[in-house]
């Protein structure tokens, strides 16, 4: 019985190239484009310098600021107002003003002030730009101090030296972080969105009533409906693996078997979401809107872009209730850190609970009546 339904579904899927296209094109486009776009490493900050002190110190400082990788000099002037205008127009992100008598003040009065103005509409960028500028000015300060006086020997001063190590991703490669996460999201999209649409389109066209009058049992219908999507989901994961290797050169540090095992379980849970959603909505338009609403929540709260640890308690709680958050965490641990099944055993348990509860609710909610 179930076999017949599965066969019917597969035929319908292959007959309608749109769904197939969605399942193939969407992962490929997203996996290729997003990691290139989602580069949160802030570099190339556009800098406007207002140098009012035409001294050798101020020129050295300007050179030092421009020499690093962080800043791109877009404007040099002596008037703050021109610089401010280029911030307003969006040409510059940061203004560094070196005031009159900068050099004189350092030498004569032992201190001088430099002011930084940052376009803080994008807070992260402004903060980092400020940090970089402070670092460079600090280095410059240390340099000239050393020139101006012979430092007392450091023997009497205690020193705690810190060594930093970025484990698993020593070059801070952002692709390594994003690719597995986006892969997780794609599987979710394929599983939840497309299975919902499929069932709802039968509702909308009325063909579901024809199925309902057959002797097919409820669970048989549901298993028959979900199996093809489970298989397609696994295929799209595989495509994802191939792309992450071919385009980004990323291979999993952990075993692929454990990823497939976990993904299989996860797809069950996601299909449960799709099924549950399809029992709530009547039209494809509604289905689209609802799944979009869900996807937005998944994307934002799952820790794909911003760390779950930085969220307040209620949001962390919500995040824990969403299966994609767990999947993203697990796929990253396996891919990047090489966690084994034993390391993440509790996560398997959690996902199994999700799968049972979501599918259970869906089956309970599904009535064999239109």
């Amino acid at each position, binding site marked *: 019985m179930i076999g017949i339904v599965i066969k019917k579904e597969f035929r319908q899927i292959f007959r309608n190239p749109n769904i197939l*296209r969605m399942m193939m094109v969407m992962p490929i486009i997203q996996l290729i484009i997003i990691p290139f*776009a989602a580069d949160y490493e802030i570099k190339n900050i556009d800098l406007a310098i207002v140098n009012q002190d035409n001294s050798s110190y101020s020129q050295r400082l300007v050179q030092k600021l421009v020499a690093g990788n962080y800043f791109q000099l877009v404007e040099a002037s002596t008037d703050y107002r021109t610089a401010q205008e280029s911030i307003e127009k969006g040409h510059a992100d940061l203004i560094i003003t070196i005031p009159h008598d900068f050099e004189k003040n350092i030498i004569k009065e032992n201190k001088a002030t430099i002011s*930084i103005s940052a376009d*803080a509409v994008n807070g992260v960028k*402004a903060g980092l730009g400020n940090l970089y500028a402070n670092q460079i000015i600090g280095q410059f300060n240390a340099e000239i101090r050393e020139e101006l006086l012979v430092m007392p020997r450091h023997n*009497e001063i205690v020193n705690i030296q810190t060594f930093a190590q970025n484990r698993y991703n020593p070059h801070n490669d952002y692709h390594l972080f994003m690719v597995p996460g986006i892969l997780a999201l794609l599987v979710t999209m394929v599983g939840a969105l497309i299975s919902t649409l499929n069932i709802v389109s039968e509702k909308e066209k009325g063909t579901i009533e024809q199925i309902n009058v057959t002797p097919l049992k409820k669970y048989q219908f549901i298993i028959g409906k979900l199996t093809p999507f489970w298989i397609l989901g696994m295929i799209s994961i595989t495509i994802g693996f191939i792309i992450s290797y071919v385009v980004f050169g990323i291979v999993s540090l952990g075993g692929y078997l454990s990823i497939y095992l976990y993904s299989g379980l996860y797809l069950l849970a996601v299909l449960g979401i799709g099924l549950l959603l399809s029992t709530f909505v009547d039209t494809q338009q509604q289905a689209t809107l609802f799944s979009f609403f869900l996807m937005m929540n998944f994307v934002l709260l799952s820790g794909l872009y911003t760390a779950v640890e930085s969220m307040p308690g209620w949001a962390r709680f919500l995040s824990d209730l969403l299966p994609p958050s767990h999947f993203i965490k697990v796929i990253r641990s396996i891919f990047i850190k090489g966690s084994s099944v034993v390391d*993440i055993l509790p996560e398997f348990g959690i996902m199994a609970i999700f799968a049972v509860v979501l599918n259970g609710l869906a089956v309970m909610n599904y009535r064999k009546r239109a």
Partner: protein
Amino acid sequence: MKTFLAFVLKEFQHVWRDKRSLFILIAMPVMLMFIFGFALSNEVKNSNIAILCPKPDEEVLSLIEKIDQSKYFTINKMMHNPNEIENYFKQNKGKMVIVFENDFADKLQHDKLANVQLIGDATDPNTATTMIGYAQGIIADYQKSLLGETNLPYAIQVETRMLYNPQLLSAYNFVPGVMALILTLLGTMMTSVSIVKEKEFGSMELLLVSPVKPIMVIFSKALPYALLCFIDVLIILLMARYVLDMPIRGNIFLLLAMSVLFIFTTLSLGLLISNSVDQQQVAMFISLVGLMMPSLIFSGFMFPIENMPKPMQIISNIVPTKWYFEILKSVMVKGLGFSYIWKHTLILVGMTAFFTLVAVRKFKIRLS
């Protein structure tokens, strides 16, 4: 005209009848504002870390206490063996391990030099870098407290002013983003799917034989969504002002006028899509992949455009959302006037005219 109004009324009733969708359309901006406003941040707060120190002495203990008391870190494990580090990371128990060397206090006292190793889980590179930075700050402070305060000569002080957004709130970046996103979703996706639905069911033919001009039938379909778009804009602005306490600096009428312009842009795109396809799933697919995703990626709202490879930066110019997002930022956050955004406005007007033109030309009175 009267018949046209009747059509508009019919469409309004259609949208009004679908209470569930209506609820989502209103709840979506509210939810997004809450998530962006209160849930998402790049700050590190109370992050779990572990300490590896086989034999902690008093110096280590007081430093550990300093670290634990900071708002950034919570110590959830004391390790005694380096082998534990790997499992700690692999089981996702925490994101950093601080390793103190043995006889830390002794070394500090006699050699005047002691070592601390900070190992971050760089699976998430930015978080790891930030955490290491904070830890280094705490340790440097501790070292300073050991030294006692001494003033260095020849000091250059830095004064920083954060323009427009002194508290570095992320709201200033995402409120315009959410507005742009919602309008794209509603204006383009909902409109195109609702028109194509009539095609798919064949009810479009009935509408087309009515005395109203066929193109008016299509416009009447877009109107309810235009109104909903506008309501969502108002909801977002009110929430930004009164829930997130974000001042709206520019002229509010300019802001609303620009939003209306962008609503027209999205609607014209919706019409274009609906006139080009026959199946709801295709319409949805095109709006999702062809528009939603580019809007999210290329508007500069989620990802900084200047970080992207050059070809992608060029592509971003043809995404309408990008221009609207920049207008919003200039007017809402920076309080600039029309003279700063006329170029953007012109581009949006041009895009709208282009989409409408193509949509009307593609529009067929007869269905195949």
